[in-house]
C-alpha cells in the first residue's frame, strides 16, 4: 500500500496501534549477532513450538528483535507486558518459561540475572545494573520492534519525524534544528552534523548525494551493525530527513558484506519503505522525491574513510584522496555529497521529534546527546552500551560494565578503535566527550571501547594495533605505508628483546611524521596507540628494552620459565604435558626445567596446581 499523504500515514499508524493489545503477552527474543552465536534462533523456535503445542498461538506474540546490548548474558528474552528479563537461555528453558511465566504468571528464578553487587535476582530489564545507568535513546527500540516489520516501527512513532518535516518545515529549518541540537558526527571525526548538511546544501550542483557509512571495521566494534540490524527504519528515516534538508534525491547505504544480517535487514527496510511510499517519487504526497540504494563493501577498513568510501562507491579501488576540497563540494562522482555514519543518521528523527533543546540538554558543553559504545575486552558485562556524553569512564567500566573479571586490576581502556589511544587508570574519572578524549591522546572514534587488565602488555598491544593498521593501510601515501611498516618492525624488535633505547625516540619521530604528513585519517591517527602507550606506560617499554623483561608476562621471547623447588610436589603434571620434553624429575621429587629445551608454550604454567612454575 502506498501512502499518499501525511494523513494516510497517521491513519495507518492509529490503525496499527488500535489493533495492538498493549496487554497481550509478547516474547521478544534477541536476534543480535552475539545471541545468534549462542543459538538464539533455536531458542526462539523452541518458544514457537511450545506456544503452539500449548495452543497459545493467538494469545502470545513471539518477536525476533535486534541486539538488546547485554551480549554477555545472551541469549536474552524479554516477556512483555511485564518486562521480565530472562538471560542465558537454552533450548530447554523455553518450555519452563511458557509453563510458568506465560501460563501461570510465575517467575522462573533461575533464569533471572543476579546482581553481582547485591547478590539478588533482578526481575526487570531496567533494574539490571547494566541497563540502569544507560540512556538508551537509539538502542532502546531494538528490543521493542521486529526489524522486518514496518508496522512495529510505525507503532512506536516511526516516520513521525519525517511527517513533521514534510508538514511545512523548510529545509533550512531542519538544518537549523540539527545545528541547534549540537549533534556531531558519530563516525570518528566529530564534525558538527548541521554544518556539514548546510555546506552540502550550499554547494553548487544539481545532483547531490547523501550517504550512510555502515562500513564499521574496527576490531571488537558492533554499534552501527546493531542499529542497522535492529532498527533499520530509524536510519532510513534520518537519511530521508537529511536528504530533504540538503536537497538530495539519491542516497546510498555503504554496508560491509561481512554484515549479512545488517545487509539483509536494511534491504528489506528499503523495500518496505518504497512500497509504503516513504521512499521514491513524491514521498507522502509531497514534492520531495528520494530513493536509497545499498552498496556492499568488500571489507577494507580504509573504506570507512569518507573519500575512500566514495571511491569504492564509484567502482574504483577504495583509496582516499586529499580533502582540501571537501566532499560536501566535490564528493561522489565529483558532486556535493553528505556522508554520515549510521548512528548519526539514527539520531536525526529523535531530534526532530523531541526538539533540539531537549537533545542539547543531554551531554556536555560541546558534545551533545548519547553515544553508543561497544564495551569489550577484559570486562564482566560485554555488550553494547548507550550513555549520555560526559559520563565518566569509571561509571561505564564499573557500574555498567561490572568491572574486571577474575578480580584482576584494571590497567587501561582503549577508546576509538584501532587508532585510538589507551587511557590509563589515573584518568578513569575523566568525562567521556570528544574534547576530553582527544586531550588525553585518544579519540571518540566510532565507539569501540576495549578494556584491558593487568595481564595486558602495552607494548604488545601497540604492536598488535600497528600491525592491524599496517595491513589495512591502502598503501597509497608514503608515510603511512612505509612508516607503519617500520613502526611495526621496531615494536616487534622490542617485544622480542632486540629493542634499543634509541628506538624510543625513533618511534616518536615516526609518529610525528605519520600524524603530520599522512594523506587520510587512517595514517594521521595510526600512531595514537603507540604514542599513548609510550606516554602512560613508558616504564614498560624501558623494561622490555633495558631489562629484557615483559612486566605483564605476555611477550614470549622475554619470558623464562622455571620450577620452584620448594612448592613443587613432584606430581608430574607438567612433565607429562610438556611437548618438548624440557622437564625432568623423579616422582614426588622437585622437577627441573631445562631452559635450553623449553619452547615457552606456557603449558606447564597453566597445568601446575601448586603455583610452582614461575614466569619471569
Amino acid at each position, binding site marked *: 500500500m502506498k501512502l499518499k499523504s501525511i494523513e494516510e500515514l497517521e491513519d495507518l499508524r492509529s490503525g496499527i496501534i488500535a489493533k495492538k493489545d498493549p496487554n497481550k503477552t509478547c516474547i521478544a527474543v534477541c536476534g543480535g549477532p552475539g545471541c545468534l552465536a549462542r543459538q538464539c534462533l533455536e531458542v526462539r523456535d523452541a518458544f514457537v513450538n511450545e506456544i503452539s503445542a500449548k495452543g497459545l498461538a493467538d494469545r502470545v506474540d513471539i518477536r525476533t528483535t535486534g541486539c538488546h546490548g547485554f551480549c554477555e548474558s545472551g541469549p536474552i528474552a524479554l516477556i512483555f507486558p511485564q518486562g521480565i528479563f530472562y538471560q542465558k537461555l537454552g533450548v530447554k528453558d523455553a518450555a519452563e518459561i511458557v509453563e510458568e511465566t506465560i501460563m501461570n504468571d510465575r517467575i522462573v528464578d533461575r533464569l533471572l540475572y543476579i546482581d553481582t553487587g547485591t547478590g539478588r535476582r533482578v526481575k526487570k530489564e531496567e533494574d539490571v545494573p547494566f541497563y540502569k545507568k544507560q540512556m538508551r535513546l537509539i538502542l532502546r527500540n531494538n528490543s521493542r520492534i521486529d526489524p522486518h516489520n514496518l508496522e512495529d516501527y510505525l507503532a512506536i512513532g516511526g516516520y513521525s519525524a519525517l511527517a513533521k518535516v514534510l508538514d511545512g518545515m523548510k529545509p533550512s529549518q531542519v538544518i537549523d534544528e540539527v545545528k541547534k541540537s549540537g549533534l556531531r558526527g558519530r563516525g570518528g571525526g566529530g564534525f558538527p552534523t548541521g554544518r556539514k548538511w548546510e555546506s552540502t546544501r550550499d554547494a553548487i550542483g544539481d545532483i547531490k548525494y547523501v550517504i550512510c557509512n555502515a562500513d564499521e571495521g574496527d576490531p571488537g566494534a558492533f554499534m552501527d551493525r546493531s542499529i542497522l540490524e535492529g532498527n533499520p527504519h530509524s536510519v532510513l528515516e534520518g537519511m530521508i530527513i537529511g536528504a530533504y534538508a540538503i536537497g538530495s534525491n539519491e542516497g546510498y547505504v555503504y554496508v560491509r558484506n561481512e554484515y549479512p544480517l545488517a545487509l539483509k535487514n536494511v534491504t528489506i527496510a528499503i523495500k518496505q519503505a518504497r512500497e509504503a511510499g516513504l521512499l521514491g517519487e513524491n514521498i507522502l504526497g509531497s514534492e520531495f522525491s528520494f530513493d536509497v540504494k545499498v552498496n556492499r563493501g568488500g571489507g577494507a577498513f580504509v573504506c570507512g574513510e569518507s573519500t575512500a568510501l566514495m571511491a569504492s562507491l564509484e567502482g574504483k579501488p577504495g583509496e582516499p584522496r586529499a580533502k582540501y576540497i571537501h566532499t560536501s563540494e566535490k564528493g561522489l562522482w565529483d558532486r556535493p555529497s553528505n556522508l554520515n555514519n549510521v548512528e548519526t543518521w539514527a539520531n536525526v528523527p529523535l531530534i526532530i521529534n523531541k526538539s533540539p533543546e531537549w537533545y542539547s540538554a543531554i551531554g556536555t558543553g560541546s558534545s551533545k546527546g548519547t553515544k553508543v559504545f561497544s564495551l569489550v575486552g577484559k570486562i564482566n558485562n560485554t555488550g553494547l552500551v548507550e550513555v549520555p556524553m560526559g559520563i565518566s569512564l569509571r561509571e561505564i567500566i564499573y557500574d555498567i560494565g561490572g568491572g574486571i573479571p577474575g578480580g584482576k586490576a584494571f590497567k587501561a581502556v582503549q577508546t576509538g578503535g584501532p587508532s585510538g589511544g589507551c587511557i590509563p587508570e589515573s584518568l578513569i574519572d575523566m568525562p567521556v566527550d570528544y574534547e576530553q578524549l582527544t586531550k588525553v591522546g585518544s579519540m571518540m572514534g566510532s565507539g569501540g571501547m576495549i578494556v584491558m587488565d593487568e595481564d595486558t602488555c602495552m607494548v604488545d598491544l601497540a604492536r598488535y594495533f600497528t600491525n592491524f593498521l599496517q*595491513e589495512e593501510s*591502502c*598503501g*597509497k*601515501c*608514503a*608515510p603511512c605505508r612505509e612508516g607503519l611498516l617500520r613502526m611495526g618492525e621496531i615494536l616487534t624488535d622490542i617485544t622480542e628483546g632486540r629493542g634499543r633505547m634509541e628506538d624510543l625516540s625513533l618511534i616518536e619521530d615516526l609518529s610525528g611524521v605519520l600524524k603530520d604528513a599522512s594523506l587520510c585519517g587512517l595514517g594521521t591517527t595510526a600512531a595514537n596507540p603507540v604514542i599513548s602507550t609510550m606516554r602512560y606506560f613508558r616504564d614498560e617499554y624501558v623494561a622490555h628494552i633495558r631489562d629484557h623483561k615483559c612486566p605483564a608476562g605476555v611477550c614470549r621471547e622475554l619470558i623464562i620459565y622455571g620450577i620452584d623447588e620448594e612448592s613443587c610436589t613432584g606430581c608430574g603434571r607438567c612433565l607429562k604435558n610438556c611437548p618438548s620434553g624440557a622437564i625432568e624429575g623423579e616422582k614426588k621429587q622437585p622437577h627441573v626445567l631445562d631452559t635450553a629445551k623449553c619452547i615457552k608454550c606456557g603449558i606447564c604454567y597453566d597445568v601446575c596446581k601448586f603455583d610452582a612454575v614461575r614466569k619471569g
Partner: protein
Amino acid sequence: MSRNITRQKGEMVTFMLNGAQVQADPNWSLLEAAKFYGLYIPTLCYDEGLTPYGVCRLCVMEVGSGDRTKLVASCMHPVIEGLEVRTHSNRVIKTRKMILELLIARCPGSKKLQDMASMLELKEVRFKPLNDDCILCGLCVRMCEEQMMAKAIGYAGRGTDRYITTPFDMTSEECRKCGACMYICPACELRCQGPEAKTTLCSGCLNTEAVCAAKYDDAMCFMVPCLSCVKRPEDVK
C-alpha cells in the same frame, strides 16, 4: 571559504609565502606557486605533465598561523587568498627528512633518492635497507594512462603489499613497450657505486670526479656525478 568567491578572469590570488606577500594564478597549486617564485621543493611523485597524485608527501608545506597550523601536500593544495604558507619551516624539514629516510631505506639503489638525501642533508638511515626497486610514486601509472593513453599498468595489493603491475600480472596487450614508465621512474636510475656501496646512504667518495667514472669509463658516461660525492665520509653514519 575564500575560494568560493567568484573572481574576474585573470585576477590573481594574494597570499603569504615564507613571509613575503606574493600573487599567484588561482588555478595553481601551492607547489606550482612556490616553483614559480624559484623555491626548491623536493618531490618524487609530481610531474608537470601529469595529474598531481599527492602520495610521496615530500612537498609538504606548513599552512596557517599561530597554533592553528598544519602540513599539506602542496602539489594538491590550491592557492587560497590570504593563506600563510611556509615552505621550509623546521616542522616541514623534519618531516621531509623522515619521509626520505623511509623511502631510501626501501630503495637505497636509486640515484635520485641519494641525490635528494644530499640536498636535504639526510645523514643517517636508521631502518634496515630493503633493496626494493619501487617507491610507489605512481608516476609510471599516470604516465602510461595520461600521456601514452595505454592504461597498461596499475596498482595491485594493499598496504605494504602494494605493487605496480599489469592486469593479472600477465603480459599486457595494452602495453606498447614504449618505455615511458622507465623514462619517468625516479628509482630506475642506479646510484653511483662508490667505494662503500653496501651502505644505505651513498658513502661519499670525496672526489668531485666520481670514482665510478674511471671504473665504468664510457659505459656510464651518461651518469652525472652523484651529489653525494661531495659529502665528507664523516658526514655519513
